[in-house]
């Protein structure tokens, strides 16, 4: 029996290769898209699961409330962790970790690299994280200061020809570390990156200042707790809150702030945390869900093609069904036959899908910022997913034709009765409308995302982001020589101006509590702070609206001078007149930094447009505060500027690596996840419309075939070719129009919601929708044009004879 079905299926494919092609390609594209998305989602969901006990590991996060806004940070104070460990019995083990703010320069003699994965970590690391130590001792490897454990990759990178254990590595050209252990590489699916585990006790030395580990109100490292099985994390959080209240409650009260902690399950950090100072950029749960929905839709759309074409073709198959029934076939046998056919198609599609996945993955990886491979979720799971998808597709796609066709009464079928003129036809239309609605929705989403990204690129940010190079001043040694560096850079012909600053747009922006002189402690304001030299305002092209920018010409500026933005005026209550601010005294509570307001500038966007503009403060400070040099260069001399600056750097800092970027790129980087969302929408909407058009093409050919006689009669009655083409196209156009009407509200609400995640956004109305709708209409008409024109050109006599 199976052989009988198989030979029928294979002969059908041979006889109607076009039909088989459409089905197989459509299904394969859908399956490939589904598989790629599954890989992506599996990857996103697997973060930090590789740690043993990952269900009991939590990171302590701090939520601070002040009179002027909230702070949500993933970091805690260095002194806290060990004391929690002592006094909270529910904490089984605790580890503190300090990844680099930017990067560390690591050197083995002349081998030098900037390393992002150089983390300082407590000797309790192995109690919490199941790092796989293959050399060295868990008990002692991280006890002594200046000890470091390497991953296998790093060991091979720095010690290619010798045993790393016991050898030295130099950090920041200054500190020598002894290699005390080697661990296996960690999977990339983790919210932190660790290539080097250095002993945290090292930080009692001057690297971060002598008292770094004792500071009790300085959120500057990450604390992870392994809880006793069965512990409610909120109970622990309450105990931690009590500890904080007892130890630093008084100080917090004086500045009008309160702090609460929360325990974040380590597995949820990647997709759900989104706090300030995440170690690596988080993923987005929204993207994961949107992609999951797209995956299901694309596969469904591909299955719909099969159903549609199979029902359209049912007229020619119904005779076979009639005969088989006459020959004694029972309905279940026929159902099995048709399901079998769709399984064969879907298995062939599966094979093609594997090839497509290999083709799609590189592009997808670029768009999504991943390094997925066909087997990255494991060989067995890849096989299981593919087979599973092929089975489900075979079942879903084949079920309708199978049940529909097998229900025919044989006497009717043998007479060549037309099937499903009403029922099947209706379903077919609904399915086509569904396909086009999905296509239009995805294309609208793509267009909106890119329009918004374009908007963010072209919006006036309040400063000039073009022709600015940012050079990182990562080390104390580099910063110490900055005045010389600045003088030499200023002389370069390709450079307009240079400024040293603690924060730059596109990078991490520091915030501080600021207090006006006459106000009480409770009226402090959280303000973004740019500790910089005199030329920051000029170099970035920030516009002064009152007072003046700092200047060497005013010696008093070096004693403490502030420039505020407009939002800061608002926060201090001076917004009625910018000049009110000039001459006021500001200070940082608890610190010894204070000065006079000398000017006010227009608001400028240092962060992404997702964020509102916050009060900002440009403070004149010395070179020890500068982490970046921002350099404005002459238009058209980019190449010269880069190499000239590089030469100065080499000359002045031969031991350090010259690291530069363009501010425009740094700012665009803030929208990396939006861009990847846009690219993903774009890619998948292309696939969706491709599949939908494949289906439409097939459907058009069957319709044209079925209506041959009608067309013949109409032509005999004098209808022109144009009229016939119009008649046939009209039916297909109707699908698109109905799909458009149905999807419009969904797309409109959905995309406005996404746009609302930006504080500054484009407007999105019916215009965009209409353009996309018309575009899809045009595409669909072009798709059916070949069939309709062919049908309308056919000789009417042939058509009538054919019947």
């Amino acid at each position, binding site marked *: *029996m199976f052989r*009988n079905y198989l*030979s*029928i299926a294979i*002969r*059908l494919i041979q*006889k109607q290769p076009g039909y088989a092609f459409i089905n197989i390609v459509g299904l394969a594209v859908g399956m490939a898209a589904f598989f790629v998305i599954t890989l992506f989602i599996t990857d996103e969901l697997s973060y930090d699961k590789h740690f043993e006990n990952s269900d009991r590991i939590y990171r302590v996060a701090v939520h601070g409330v002040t009179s002027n806004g909230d702070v949500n940070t993933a970091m805690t104070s260095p002194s806290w962790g060990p004391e929690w460990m002592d006094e909270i019995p529910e904490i089984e083990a605790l580890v503190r970790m300090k990844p680099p703010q930017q990067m560390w320069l690591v050197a083995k003699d002349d081998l030098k690299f900037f390393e992002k994965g150089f983390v300082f970590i407590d000797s309790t690391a192995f109690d919490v994280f199941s790092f796989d130590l293959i050399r060295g001792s868990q008990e002692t490897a991280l006890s002594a200061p200046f000890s470091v454990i390497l991953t296998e990759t790093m060991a091979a990178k720095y010690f290619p020809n010798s045993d790393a254990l016991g050898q030295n590595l130099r950090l920041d050209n200054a500190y020598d570390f002894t290699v005390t252990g080697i661990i296996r590489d960690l999977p990339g699916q983790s919210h932190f990156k660790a290539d080097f585990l250095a002993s945290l006790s090292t930080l009692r030395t001057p690297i971060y200042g002598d008292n770094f580990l004792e500071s009790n109100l300085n959120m500057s490292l990450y604390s992870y707790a392994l809880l006793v099985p069965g512990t409610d994390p909120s109970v622990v959080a309450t105990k931690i809150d009590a500890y904080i209240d007892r130890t630093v409650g008084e100080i917090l009260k004086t500045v009008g702030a309160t702090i609460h902690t929360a325990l974040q399950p380590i597995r949820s950090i990647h997709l759900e945390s989104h706090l300030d100072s995440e170690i690596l950029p988080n993923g987005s749960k929204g993207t994961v869900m949107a992609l999951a929905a797209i995956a299901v839709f694309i596969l469904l759309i591909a299955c719909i093609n099969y159903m549609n074409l199979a029902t359209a073709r049912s007229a020619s198959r119904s*005779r*076979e069904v*009639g*005969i*088989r*029934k*006459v*020959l*004694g*076939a*029972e*309905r279940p*046998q026929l159902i099995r036959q048709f399901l079998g056919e769709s399984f064969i198609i879907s298995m062939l599609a599966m094979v093609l899908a594997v090839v497509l996945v290999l083709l799609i993955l590189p592009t997808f990886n670029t768009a999504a910022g991943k390094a997925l491979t066909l087997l990255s979720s494991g060989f067995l799971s890849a096989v299981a997913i593919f087979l599973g998808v092929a089975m489900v597709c075979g079942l879903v796609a084949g079920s309708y034709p199978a049940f529909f066709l097998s229900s025919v*009464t*044989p*006497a*009717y079928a*043998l007479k060549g009765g037309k099937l499903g003129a009403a029922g099947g036809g209706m379903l077919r239309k609904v399915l086509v409308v569904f396909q086009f609605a999905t296509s239009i929705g995805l294309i609208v989403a793509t267009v909106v995302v890119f329009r918004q990204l374009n908007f963010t690129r072209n919006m006036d940010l309040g400063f000039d982001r073009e022709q600015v190079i940012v050079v990182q001043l990562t080390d104390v040694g580099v910063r110490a020589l900055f005045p010389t560096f600045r003088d030499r850079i200023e002389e370069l012909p390709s450079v307009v101006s240079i400024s040293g600053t603690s924060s730059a747009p596109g990078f991490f922006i520091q915030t501080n509590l600021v207090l006006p002189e006459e106000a009480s402690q409770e009226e402090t304001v959280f303000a973004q702070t740019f500790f910089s030299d005199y030329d920051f305002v000029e170099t970035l092209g920030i516009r002064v609206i009152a007072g003046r920018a700092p200047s060497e010409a005013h010696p008093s500026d070096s004693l403490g001078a502030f420039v505020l933005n407009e939002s800061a005026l608002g926060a201090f209550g001076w917004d009625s007149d910018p000049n009110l601010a000039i001459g006021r005294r500001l200070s940082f509570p608890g610190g010894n930094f204070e000065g006079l307001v000398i000017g006010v500038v227009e608001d400028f966007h240092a962060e992404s447009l997702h964020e509102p503009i916050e009060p900002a403060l440009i403070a004149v400070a010395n070179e020890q505060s500068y982490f970046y040099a921002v350099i404005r260069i002459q238009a058209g001399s980019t190449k010269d500027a880069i190499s000239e600056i590089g030469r100065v750097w080499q000359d002045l800092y031969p031991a350090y690596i010259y690291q530069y970027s363009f501010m425009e790129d740094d700012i665009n980087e803030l929208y990396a996840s939006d861009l990847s969302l846009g690219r993903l929408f774009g890619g998948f909407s292309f696939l969706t419309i491709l599949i939908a058009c494949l289906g439409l093409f097939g459907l058009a050919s069957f319709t044209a075939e079925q209506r041959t006689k009608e067309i013949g009669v109409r032509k005999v009655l004098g209808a022109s070719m144009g009229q016939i083409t119009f008649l046939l196209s009209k039916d297909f156009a109707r699908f698109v129009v109905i799909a458009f009407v149905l999807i419009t509200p969904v797309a409109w609400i959905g995309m406005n919601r996404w746009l609302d995640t930006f504080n500054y956004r484009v407007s999105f109305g019916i215009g965009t929708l209409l353009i996309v709708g018309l575009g899809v209409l045009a595409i669909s008409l072009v798709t059916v044009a070949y069939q309709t024109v062919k049908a309308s050109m056919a000789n009417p006599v042939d058509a009538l004879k054919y019947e």
Partner: protein
Amino acid sequence: MIRLEKITKSFLHGFNRSFVLRNISLEVKEGEFVSIIGPSGSGKSTILHILGMLDEPSTGEYFFFDQPVHKISERKRTDLHREYIGFVFQAYHLIDDLTVYENLETPLLYKKIKGSERKSMVAEMLDRFNMVAKKDLFPSQLSGGQQQLVGVARALIMQPKLILADEPTGNLHTSHGEIVMDWFKRLNKEDGVTVIQVTHSDHWASYGDRVIELVDGRVERDVQNEPVPTSI
């Protein structure tokens, strides 16, 4: 073998019910060779389909070997029809995508007959109809007469007790028609197979022992073994 009691068949045309068969009662005994004749649209095919359990009557009762066909389940009906009935059509109704061999094999597959037995049954049929050389051809590669022979062979392969034939010779040249009719005659006489055929022509009708004439869904005439007047 067959007993029809007041069988009617009607279709809804909009709000009108049009009757194709009206109150047909008749009996056919095992071993008879019946020809059904009548003008086009008189309901010949319809009654044959009902007899073959391919279609259901609107009202009335149908007994097949004393089993009430109108009452039993679809499954049971399929069993009866698989067991006892072979069908031959004017349009041959072979499965285009299967070879001669596979077409003959299909009913055996549905009856779940084992491979070796199946092979010998198909081989025997091919032999009986002199089609061994053609077994791997597709229907489209055969002449009309050859196709109809395959149709007859396929109907016979299950060794049915009843053969229903709807204008089996309608599309054939006379010489081919003779071959088919001779087969029916032989099966009827030698093996005692009951044959009911629908035909337009008196010539082919005369092969039967009994002629039933339908007019407008009614039995107009039911006679034994005598030539029919050429009034049609």
